[in-house]
């Protein structure tokens, strides 16, 4: 099969012929129909997050089941699925206490002694986050996918596989935004826009979108933002304080920078909670004013929206099909696998919402 391989950091992905193993007992072969190009792919490409190379990036996709392992009963050939990197084992302490997205059980990957799922001329290709979706086929654990209704278009389903779940999940699950509360979202890329849309669905009163690109702020308004701030032109913290008369109940950082993570905390009112969604580069320290803890301000991380994706993703699809979740606006371009590097470059400049690879 063809796949986009990352061999060296800061080099373009190469389209290469790669071999994929047969499904093991609990594995499923999926033929992706659509794969989103997500900002997190860039973090691994530019090395702000180290990863074993060579690897095949891509972790946001939807497709059709091609073949199932001998023990798989949840899906069958032909089923429509969304894949998710939050593969869960189902029986560790995290899973059993309802924190499936924090499961770190190694059993959802192959062991070091087994034949790798992906390889090329007998050399292993490291699977990316147990998925690797920039490829014509994916071999994944049965707990890394969810079956979906067949009237859901694949390209929009793919977005639910990462950015929607990450943004909406951070609002619903990690933070637990209540109706009427005030929310600020810093960064209006795919995840930030999903958080804004999620805050609107959750019934937040004020939803303040913060970004440096006016076109993204316009999109934020269409998705439910009540106020927008161009942080390149004005003092974002000051404006948030004025709009909310003293700070937000909830803030979300969806960029992954020290400065914006600290801003998210500074935008809080007393008792408020800042949720850091963005991937802050390894080794970066965050500094806060200790006195703010007297006002019961909180800061927390959110990974993949604290999801229970087999429950969440079908609900998000229902939200989309009933008009509450906006996904059509999120796809700026549909491309071929061969053009994946252009999509990654477009993300770097920050102008476009999202490119989605459509497989033939």
């Amino acid at each position, binding site marked *: 099969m063809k796949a986009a391989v990352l061999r060296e950091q800061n080099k373009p992905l190469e389209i290469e012929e790669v071999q994929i193993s047969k499904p093991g007992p609990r594995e499923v072969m999926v033929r992706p129909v659509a794969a989103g190009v997500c900002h997190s792919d860039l973090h691994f490409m530019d090395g702000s*997050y*180290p*990863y*074993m*190379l060579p*690897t095949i990036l891509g972790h946001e996709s939807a497709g059709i089941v091609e073949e199932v392992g001998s023990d798989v009963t949840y899906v069958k050939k032909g089923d429509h699925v969304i894949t998710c*990197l*939050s*593969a869960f084992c189902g029986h560790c302490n995290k899973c059993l206490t309802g924190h499936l997205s924090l499961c*770190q059980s*190694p059993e959802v*990957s192959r062991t*070091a002694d087994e034949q790798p799922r992906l390889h090329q001329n007998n050399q292993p290709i*490291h*699977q990316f*986050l*147990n998925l690797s979706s920039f490829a014509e086929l994916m071999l994944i654990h049965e707990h890394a996918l969810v079956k979906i209704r067949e009237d859901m278009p694949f390209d929009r389903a793919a977005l639910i596989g990462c950015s929607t779940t990450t943004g909406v999940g951070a609002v619903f699950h990690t933070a637990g935004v209540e109706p009427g509360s005030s929310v600020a979202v810093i960064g209006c890329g795919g995840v930030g826009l999903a958080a804004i849309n999620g805050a609107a669905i959750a019934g937040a009163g004020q939803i303040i979108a913060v970004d440096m690109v006016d076109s993204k702020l316009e999109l934020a308004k269409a998705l439910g933002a009540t106020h927008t701030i161009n942080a390149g032109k004005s003092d974002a913290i000051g404006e948030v304080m004025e709009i909310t008369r003293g700070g937000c109940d909830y803030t979300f950082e969806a960029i992954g920078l020290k400065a914006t993570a600290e801003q998210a905390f500074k935008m809080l009112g007393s008792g408020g909670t800042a949720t850091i969604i963005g991937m802050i580069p*390894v*080794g970066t320290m965050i500094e806060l004013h200790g006195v703010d803890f007297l006002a019961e301000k909180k800061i927390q991380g959110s*990974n993949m929206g604290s999801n229970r994706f087999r429950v969440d993703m079908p609900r998000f699809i229902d939200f989309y099909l009933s008009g509450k979740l906006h996904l059509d606006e999120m796809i700026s371009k549909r491309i071929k696998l061969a053009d994946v590097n252009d999509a990654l470059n477009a993300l770097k400049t920050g102008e476009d919402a999202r490119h989605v690879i459509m497989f033939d």
Partner: protein
Amino acid sequence: MSRVEIESEVTGNVWKIEVKIGDKVETEDVLMILESMKMEIPVEAACAGTVVELLVKEEDVVEEDQVVAIIET
């Protein structure tokens, strides 16, 4: 000759150790692979030399900045 401490950049589990004591390594060779929040993260040699100590074994939990190996240059 000097002893260089190799640290893990992140918290994670040791999934696979790729070298043994006495192995000669080059800068950026992968010494071990950690698994952390679904990511496969390499611990690389910071310099060329000989692996003289491995301070963790497979399946161990390692913390950020923990010394996991020593290379003698």
